[in-house]
């Protein structure tokens, strides 16, 4: 590796300081609390108590995997179609995709709640046409729908970006070598847009597995996800320690899944043009 010049080091200093304070610092605190008890002495009790939360880990992982998969199944074809539209249509759709990202997630979740509530718009419509009400809030479906609704743009945009970067010549070469459009999609487009898929999956999976307000608002308090548990532990001041342990394990889980995905796309970095 190239040796850094003095100037480069000075220029990087503020960033290093910032990272130390706001990224490394909190991480260290998490690790610290995860391995200490109320007296501040080292203990493994926090970690060892985690098996009693295995149900929470289970449903969090399950919900976020389902939400991520559905986002991918909706997002990939959507991004593919967008990339093949006329420039105007493309720009309009991109704005439509980005617009919700400018609104606070919390507000978006509340608005979905307003739609799905027992006295909400959807049920109002259903009763209006003479159908019975449906209870959405408090079901698995509502929580997963909330995740999809909140995070879908984060799946579409990176995939769309890698689609637009995809050189047309590769598509022409595939066609030249005998691929119809479906074969081109699977043999060329999909592998070459893998980097976009990886970042899309990451950007949906990570917030999904750590969310707490979606399950609180749309789950009606029925589901205790990882985020809810951590939040509660931190809110009840003297149980920082369990919360930190859960956070630590969750972080490790996320890192492992990211590593697996990167392996899966092996050589992905060469593809990014």
């Amino acid at each position, binding site marked *: 590796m190239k040796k850094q010049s003095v100037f480069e080091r000075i220029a990087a200093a503020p960033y290093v300081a910032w990272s130390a304070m706001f990224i490394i610092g909190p991480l260290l605190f998490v690790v610290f609390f995860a391995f200490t008890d109320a007296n501040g002495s080292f203990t493994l009790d926090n970690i060892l108590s985690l098996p009693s939360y295995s149900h929470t880990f289970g449903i969090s992982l399950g919900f976020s995997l389902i939400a991520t998969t559905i986002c991918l199944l909706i997002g990939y074809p959507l991004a593919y179609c967008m990339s093949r539209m006329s420039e105007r249509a493309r720009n309009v759709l991109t704005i439509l995709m980005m617009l919700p990202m400018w609104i606070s997630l919390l507000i978006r979740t509340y608005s979905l709640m307003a739609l799905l509530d027992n006295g909400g718009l959807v049920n109002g419509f259903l009763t209006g046409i003479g159908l019975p009400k449906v209870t959405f809030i408090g079901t698995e479906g509502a929580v997963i729908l909330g995740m999809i609704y909140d995070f879908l743009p984060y799946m579409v945009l990176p995939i769309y970006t890698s689609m637009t970067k995809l050189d047309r010549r590769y598509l*022409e*070469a*595939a066609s030249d*070598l005998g691929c119809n459009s479906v074969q081109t999609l699977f*043999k060329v487009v999909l592998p070459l847009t893998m980097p976009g898929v990886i970042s899309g999956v990451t950007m949906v999976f990570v917030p999904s597995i750590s969310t707490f307000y979606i399950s609180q608002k749309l789950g009606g308090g029925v589901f205790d996800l990882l985020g809810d548990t951590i939040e509660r532990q931190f809110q009840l001041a003297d149980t920082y320690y369990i919360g930190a342990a859960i956070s630590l394990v969750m972080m490790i889980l996320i890192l492992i899944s990211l590593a697996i995905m990167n392996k899966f796309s092996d050589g992905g970095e*060469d593809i990014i043009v």
Partner: protein
Amino acid sequence: MNKEVLIRLNGISKAYDGETVLDHIDLEIHDKEFMTLLGPSGCGKTTTLRMIGGFETPDEGDVFFDGKRFNDVPPYQRQVNTVFQRYALFPHLNVFDNIAFGLRIQKRPDAEIKTKVKDMLALVNLKGFERRKVSTLSGGQQQRVAIARALINQPKVLLLDEPLAALDLKLRKDMQNELKNIQHQTGITFIYVTHDQEEALSMSDTVVVMAHGQIQQIGTPTDIYNEPINAFVADFIGESNIVDGIMLDDYRVKLAGHIFDCVDKGFGKNEPVDVVIRPEDVDVVATEKGMLRGLVTAVTFKGVHYEIIVDVKGFKWMIQTTDFVAEGETIGLSIDPDAFHIMKKSEFSGMFGDYSSFSDELEKLSDVTEEIEEE
């Protein structure tokens, strides 16, 4: 050439945003022919090739393949393969998988794919490169992978779009020979695009010279060189002095104030014409023996010969001679009757042929800009 016509372009026109790029192209390509589309950058060569490959549809006119109308047949259903201008090798596949791509799509058995890829790698001199990533290959190697990837499908026609443009001179020469050999060995029809006239002349059975979206001339390399149809072709192919002349009668042409014997006929009496005289066809003689007389304004040593610029009554000629003459010397020029090539006046008359602004450096500069434009 009596071989059957494989591809026929019939009155093909194409415009982008109202800008005409191809203007009624008529072209017949014969089986097993090595045909080259030659012309300056932007004249429509690539577009013509893409019509044959199926990547563009003509606004007007028809493409026939083996006598069948082909306009709306998509590329993947054409027995045509392409070596793209910058190769377009798949970055996610290694050399083996790139070359095997077409056969895999055809769902050929693995054993067959293995042998064929091996044969192809041998053909393009890349034995042992199977597992290499394409991004680690040099330009010349990538280019050969691109050729192998196309050839393995045993197409009827191989389209090559400036495949050697990115290579340095030495490698380019080697690859020209290799391509020519491959074409002989496989018997596949090659349609080759280049803006390099030397490449076109040395490789092709037939050269198609294009300018401004129109075909100027179709012929063998010898025909194109010796009998250019107009000033554009004469200027584009090799060096030439293109002089205004008047055809006094059959076999008699007047230029630069002198009446010469020539071997051309069939023009009107006193018809104004363009006359081509190649630099190597002018003899330097003693002043009193010369048909024309001129002042040497520049001398460049070229190894085999000297290239001199001679001012004859204000028109600068380029002449190649093995005798040394000095700058500032007045010399006589003598031209044999069969050295004249007479052409009808055309839209290109007067645009080319004078070497008054000529210098080697300028020529090199313009080559470089051309290459940059290609990028």
